[in-house]
């Protein structure tokens, strides 16, 4: 069923909102529409790919775990601003059991025991930043950013000593 409906036309700095049914084919269609919109907004191809990976993992988690095969609706909001994407995923499925999974890479040996799963949260964490989850009014809200860091508008290469890694 085609359930991905862009509710807002894409535009510079504007939110693209897509409401989709909780199933893997609807996720696929929603991602197709979203990536097309991001390309039109001139997001670099590599960032489109990164966003698509993170969003696919996060949305399929909702389908498989929050709604766990029961019907439901997922609301995806993506805003592109200054080359960075801010993504929010909202659903009414089951709450996350405790904190977000650590997303560590499972061990890849020996050859006959290479894991077939457990990579989703690893990919989300590896490719996104500012990842937050909260449960609010019966909804799950997951948000994160993808793409390059936003620099202050009108400012060139400015060194920011407070951003040194810890």
């Amino acid at each position, binding site marked *: 069923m085609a359930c991905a409906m862009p509710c807002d036309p894409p535009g510079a700095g504007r939110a693209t909102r897509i409401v989709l049914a909780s199933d*893997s*084919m609807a*996720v*696929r269609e929603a*991602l197709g529409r979203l990536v097309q919109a991001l390309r039109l907004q001139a997001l670099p*191809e*590599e960032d489109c*790919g*990164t966003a*698509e*990976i993170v969003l*696919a*993992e996060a949305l*399929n988690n909702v*389908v*498989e775990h929050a709604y766990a095969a029961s019907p439901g609706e997922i609301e995806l909001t993506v805003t592109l601003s200054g080359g960075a994407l801010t993504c929010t995923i909202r659903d009414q499925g089951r709450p996350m059991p405790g904190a977000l999974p650590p997303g560590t*890479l499972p061990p*890849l040996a020996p*050859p*006959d025991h*290479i*894991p*077939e*799963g457990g*990579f*989703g949260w*690893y*990919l989300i964490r*590896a*490719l996104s930043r500012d990842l937050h989850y909260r449960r609010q009014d019966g909804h799950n809200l997951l948000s994160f950013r993808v793409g390059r860091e936003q620099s202050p508008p009108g400012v060139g290469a400015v060194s920011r000593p407070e951003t040194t890694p810890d």
Partner: protein
Amino acid sequence: MDLQPDNRGDMLVVRAMEPRIDAAVAIQFKDRMRDLLAAAPARVVLDLSQVQFLDSSGLGAVVAVMKHLGPGRRLELAGLTPTVQKVFRLTRMDSVFTIHPEVPDGLRDAV
């Protein structure tokens, strides 16, 4: 699930004609590959050059196919597109599989 086998004697090349191997089709991909591999030779090359996107479910399906082949046969990959390559690199699966830039010539590149 459009997977096109090309039996080259000592090597079976399977060309994935799907634009995406994702959660929506991972099970079909696994099932269809298992059918194709029933009488496969020791060397199987999966050509992913037409696949623009693969998620962790697709990755798991490729791993499942490799394990299904068992220790006597091996699965190699060819033609990874940028986003697919990124998933293999980040998960270090590029250290598990032999990955060719394009489908190798069976005689010249046989190891």
